[in-house]
Each structure stands twice: as C-alpha cells, then as structure tokens.
C-alpha cells in the first residue's frame, strides 16, 4: 500500500515522555497544508511534556489537550487511514496502540468559487459550485440555515472511492425516493466515478429509456436550494462542480433562476419564448425539408417563389443540403468548444465567411436553407440543457421529413411524445404538470405566477399525480 508512491509522506517523531514513545504523521503530499501541519500538529506535539502513561492514554491526551486543530477523528482501521489520508487529513499513529487520529489539515489547491459559465444569470447570485465537496456543502448550507438539511455520505467507485453527499431536506424529501437513490447508487459497479455523468445512467428508471434525461444537473447553489425545498434530492460528487438533482422533469428545463428574479409578466414571456424556441430548434429544419421536398404548396406564395428560386440554383437536393449544413454547423460547434480560446475567433471567421457567405455566393447552398439552419441553431441555445436531445431530434426530423414529408414528421413526433409520456424519473412521470396534467402546478410552467401565489403552497415533487409509491395521487 503506497509502497513506491512519491507523494506518500511519513514524518516520524518522538514524543517526550520519561520513556520516549515513537509516533508518525502520515500525509499525502499536496493534500495537506504544510503550515497547518507545522503549527497545529508538529509544534504542539514536540513542545508538549507528556505524562508517563500508556500509548492509549497518550493518544487520548493528544486528542483532548495537545492538538489545536478543530477537526480530529479517531479511528482504528487501515481502510479508514487510507480514506482519511487521501482526503487531506494528517494521520497520527503512535507506537503501541491500534488507534489513530485523523487531523484536519486539508490544504490542496482548488478553483475558487466563481460564476458557472454554463448557467449565467442576469440577476442573482454569482456563486457556483467548485470541485471540493466540503466547499459545495458550505455553499448550500449558507443558503439553507435549516436543521432539516441533511448531508448523507456515500462512497462509489471501486478504485476511485469517490465520496458523494446525498443532500435533502428531511421533512420535504420522499423516503421512498431516497431509498431508491441509495439502492441505485449502491448498485453502481463502476471502477471510477470522475464526473456526474457517470452516475446519471444508474439513477434513471428501468424501462424508461429516452433521449431526454430524467436526471437534472446544476452548478448553481441557489438552484439546488430551490429544488431541495420542493422535495428533490441533490447528489454532490467530490471533484466535480456539477450537482445531480433528482427527480427531474421536462418542464424544469425551461425554468431558470432569472425567472424568479424578474417580474412575473416578463418571466412568463420568457417561458413562452423558451417553449417556442425549443419547438423551432427541433422542428424547423425538418418541416422546411419536408415542405420543400413534398408539399411546396404549404409555403406562402411569396416565400415559395423566393425559396424555389434559391433552391433551384444549388446543386444538392434540399434534404442533403439541410443535412450538410446542420452537420457542418455541429462540427464547427464541437471544434469551437475544444480548441484553445485564442483560436476560437479564427474558427468563427472561417465559419461565418467561408461556410456561410462564400458557400451561398458560390451557389453551393441556398440562403433560405442557411437561414433555417441558423435560426434552429440559435433557438437550440435558448434551452441549453436540452441541447443533446434537440440536436439528435433535429437530425431525425430532417431525415424523416426528407424521406416521408409531413406524414413522417407527424409519425416521428408521435414516437417521441409516447416515449416522453411513458418516461419516469424515480417514479415521477417525466412530463408531470403537462401529462399527467396538473392545474395547480401550471402556475410555474408556461406562466410564472407572482411570488404571493407561489408562496401559498410549495408543491413537493413526490406529490405530483401518478407518482409511484406516493400517497399523493391526486389530479
């Protein structure tokens, strides 16, 4: 164990008693603060005059009267010693006793608390989760000064031994849902858990396969706190700022922190805009392809003339053209994400000028097709958490629209709808509020009611109609 590991450090020392006793401080280099070890552990230990007693009594004396650290845990197994030392604790071992002390001296470098780039808000907190688990716990606790708030520790990953925190409000969370989560996390047989995505699939319901996710992710402590108050459960994973929130429903993808900071009328307007954008992002290229290929009569006359004129000048069939542009756009997007930031501008210029303007003027692609694909692409960023399903569905609709026309699009929509309606997230129907319809929860779906109405009653997630293992089965 740690045999040849360069970061495994053992500082041997002798405690000054009448009969000197050997001791050792075990640390992992880089995980502990050297200053803390020197000031809170080494100095008190080496300067203290111990009474002549047995090693066990000596350890108790050190724990109660010598060390100045605020966090001291006593344990007696090798497994715990490994766990504590790899978590940034200094482990104190004394010759002659099987008991050991873990002394809090974490000092590893970490990213400071900053605004999450994926969830930017106009008004509201600028704090986002960071990688260390304890800091994330603090960010939640600072907002929820409620004794009901519980952090429950779990460990997953055979090799990584990643620490998780199940975070919930005891009085709000459903015990059935909590048990399901514990069971599913315990069944996780991964070697290493390095990000939240590793666990998402384990938390999804069986027989509920879908391209939509029943597991929500957030990097914002205020969002997590809001969800906790609705009876949801957050899972904090050590080493990642992305916190899992379950159960997760479709309508939540259209809610953001800003909705609750803005005036209700504007928040409602934004909500409707988001739903429309989602529809445009998914359907527009497919419908355009289907109409251009099979039903040009559905275009308004003026638009039909312009579109057919534009399409007639390009060498490719419309389906292939839409597919090609969408595909190229996705490549550029992926490249933009992965390349170093300074090169990003170059990609933007290449994309806008070469692929866009030059391709149109060269007559390779039509301007109307480019406009349709660009509109759909912009709309897909309005609901960014839904980007993966939007992208896949967009491609499917383009292909189906190009082969079967409107009929195919309707058929594909029926499949998607059935799939979404059958999906559950930890027993809660994924489409809750809409299907099963709940009039009461409509106050925060398409519209955002004013705070006075929202504050009257909080709807707990397990109280949604047709939730499995729930006593609340109302409609």
């Amino acid at each position: 164990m740690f045999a040849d590991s360069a970061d495994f450090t053992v500082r041997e020392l002798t405690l000054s008693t009448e009969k000197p006793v050997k001791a050792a401080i075990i640390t992992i280099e880089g995980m502990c603060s050297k200053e803390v070890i020197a000031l809170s552990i080494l100095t008190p230990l080496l300067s203290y005059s111990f009474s002549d007693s047995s090693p066990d009594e000596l350890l108790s004396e050190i724990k109660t009267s010598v060390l100045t650290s605020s966090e001291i845990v006593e344990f007696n197994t090798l497994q715990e010693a490994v766990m504590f030392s790899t978590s940034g604790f200094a482990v104190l071992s004394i010759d002659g006793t099987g008991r050991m002390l873990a002394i809090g001296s974490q000092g590893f470098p970490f990213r400071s608390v900053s605004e999450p780039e994926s969830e930017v808000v106009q008004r509201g907190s600028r704090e986002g989760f960071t990688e260390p688990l304890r800091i994330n716990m603090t960010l939640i606790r600072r907002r929820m000064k409620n004794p009901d708030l519980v952090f429950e520790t779990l460990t997953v990953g055979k090799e990584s031994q990643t620490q998780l925190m199940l975070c919930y409000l005891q009085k709000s969370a459903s015990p059935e849902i909590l048990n399901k989560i514990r069971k599913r996390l315990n069944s996780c047989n991964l070697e290493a858990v390095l990000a939240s995505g590793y666990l998402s699939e384990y938390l999804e319901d069986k027989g509920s396969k879908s391209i939509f996710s029943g597991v929500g992710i957030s990097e914002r402590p205020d969002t997590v706190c809001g969800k906790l108050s609705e009876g949801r459960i957050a899972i904090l994973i050590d080493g990642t700022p992305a916190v899992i929130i379950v159960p997760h429903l479709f309508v939540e993808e259209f809610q953001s922190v800003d909705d609750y900071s803005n005036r209700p009328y504007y928040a409602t307007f934004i909500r409707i805009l988001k739903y429309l954008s989602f529809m445009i992002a998914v359907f527009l290229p497919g419908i355009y392809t289907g109409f251009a290929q099979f039903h040009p009569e559905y275009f308004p006359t003026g638009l039909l003339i312009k579109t057919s004129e534009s399409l007639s000048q390009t060498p490719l069939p419309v389906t292939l053209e839409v597919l090609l542009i969408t595909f190229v756009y996705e490549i550029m997007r992926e490249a933009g994400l992965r390349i170093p930031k300074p090169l990003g501008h170059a990609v933007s210029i290449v994309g806008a000028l070469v692929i866009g303007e030059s391709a149109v003027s060269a007559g390779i692609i039509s301007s109307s097709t480019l406009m349709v694909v660009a509109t759909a692409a912009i709309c897909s960023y309005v609901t960014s958490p839904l980007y993966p399903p939007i992208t896949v569905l967009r491609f499917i609709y383009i292909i189906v629209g190009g082969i079967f026309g409107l009929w195919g699009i309707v058929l594909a929509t029926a499949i998607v709808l059935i799939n979404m309606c059958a999906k559950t997230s930890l027993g809660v129907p994924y489409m809750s509020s809409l299907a099963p319809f709940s009039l009461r929860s409509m106050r925060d779906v398409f519209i955002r009611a004013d705070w006075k109405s929202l504050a009257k009653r909080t709807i707990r997630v397990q109280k949604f109609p047709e939730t499995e293992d729930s006593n609340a089965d109302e409609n």
Partner: protein
Amino acid sequence: MQTKIKFPAKRFMLLLFLCSSSVILLQNYDLSESSSFMYNIVSMLLGLAVSFLFFVPSIIIKRKTDLDFMSFAHIKTPSAIIFISSFYCAYFVYTAEYFLLRYMDMFSQKLNSEANIYAVALFLLAVCIYAAYKGTNAIARCSIFIFLFALVSFILIFTGNISNVKADSSVYSFEGSTDSLLNNALFFTTPAFTAVIFATLSGFTKNFRQRQVLFTTGFLALLFGLIMFFVAFALGKYSTAQSYQGFLLSKSAHIGGVNGFDSLYLSLSVLIVLLVISLLLTCIGKSVGKSGSLSTVVVFTAIIYVLFICSGYFNSVKKILTDEYIFVFFTLTASVVIPSVYLIVFGRKDYD
C-alpha cells in the same frame, strides 16, 4: 411504464373522444343530399344517443365493481374466458383493420397517391406497436397533447371558414326521408366502438363518473355538428360531389391570406388513427391477459398487416372489413350483448 398506476377516468374519456372523432376525420362520409342540415343533425344526435347506450352495460359493471368487463368476465367465468377473449381479440383486429383501411384510402387519395401503401401501413403499425407496448397510461397522457393540437387545428379550420359561410333560411328547414335518417344514424353509431374499448380498459381508471360519458358524447355531437354546419354552409354545393368533406373544409380555410390548414387536418388524422390502433392493440393485450407484452402485440399487429395486404389484393375482403353494418353489429355484440348477459347472469348474485 407505469402499469400499476391508475389514471383519471377524465383522461380516458378524452382519449375516447379523440378516437371517436376519427369517425368523421377518416371516413369518406356521405350524408344524404336530399335531407336538410337540421335533418342530418337530428340523425347525428340519434346515432350518438345510440352510441351512448352502447356504453351502459360496461358503465354498470364499472360503477358496481370498479372493474372493466374483461376482468369481470375473467373472475366470473374463468373457464369460458378463452372464448370471450377470442371474440374480443377478433373484434379488435377487425376494428383496427377497419380504421387502417379507411385511413390508407384517405392517405392515397388526399396525401400521396404514388406512395407504396403497404410500406406506409407497415411504418404506421410499427409506431402503434411501440405505443401499445408502452401501455394505456402513456397513450392517455399522449392524448392530452393530441387534444390540444386537435383543438387548435379545429379552431383554425372553423375560423378560416367563417368568411365562406352563407347561411340562409334553409338552416331551419327540416326535410328528409326515414331511410336517410336511419342510414345517417347508422353512420353516426360508428363511435360506439369506443364503448368496447371502455369495456376492456376502464379497469385502469379511477374517479369514474357516469356523466363523463355523457359529456364526451355531448362534445362529440358539438364537434360533428360544427363540421356538418361548415360543410353544409361554407362549402355548400361544391362539397356534395366530393369525397372527404372534412378535408375539403380544411383546404378551403384561410385566415388573412394564410392557408394550408389541410396540413393540420392530415397531421391530426395520422395522430388519431395511431391512437385508435394503439389503443385497440392494448385492448388485445388486456383481452388475452398479457398487458404490455410485446410479443402479443407484435403477433396481432402481424395479423392486422396480413389482413391489410389481403384486402389490397381481394376486394371482397376489403368490402367485408369496411362494411358499416358488420362493424355496428360486431360492436353491438361486444359492447351490449355479451356484457348484458354477464350482468343478467352474474350481476344480481353479487349486489342484491
């Protein structure tokens, strides 16, 4: 799939309402030209009243036992259930075929006459298999979205036809023969097939009230009435020689220079036929006691598809499968005769 969860009867009735609307959406209905609008309305009301009566036996079973007829029959006559199941499976296959053939006729006439209808039917049935596999609850949830789509579509179609309406004193005239009254009434009893679906699947529902069936029939009457009104007074004589008047109505709709509402009509008809066939497939699963069994659904879908191919090659098969008289007779037996016999024989013993 939430098979254990019961869902509200209101949603089930919404689903049945949508299925019933398929009658007017998919059928190439031909109301007598000689009878007046009011006369046709009366025949429609008569037909729908009869349809409502088809629900009565299964409503009584549901109210008294909170079971659907199929579960009731299974409990009361476990040894005879094989015959009952076989009859109902045959009925559901026949009904699915009835609506599939009517939809495919409409597809080839109004949407794409060059398409290979066998391939189209295959794709359609594949989606139905998926929906039936996901279960009644998923289909019922889906019906909420389809209902919203239908509502928007009909509002647009009717609004788009208001400017075409030329109603005169003939609105109030009441002319027609008894024969045409009976023929029209027979056509409007077609929605009674939903009574058989109700008899089979109502066990999955909760909070059932008798008035829900009444309201559903009432809304159906309103929808049919509106379509008949616009067909009679917005399309006028133009429609008499034409087929699929509902489709024509959507084609003639225009709002401020915007038209193309027939795309909504065609989309709606696909969604409705999907609902109907999927629901009938779940009924088959329930009848054979294997709800949610993929293999059962696939086997019966294959039978439906084979029948569809046969009807394409043999006109006599198609005639039998789309015959209204056979359909109504079959429906009457499945929704009224058999459940009534069970009620008479077994009902009193339990409740008196």
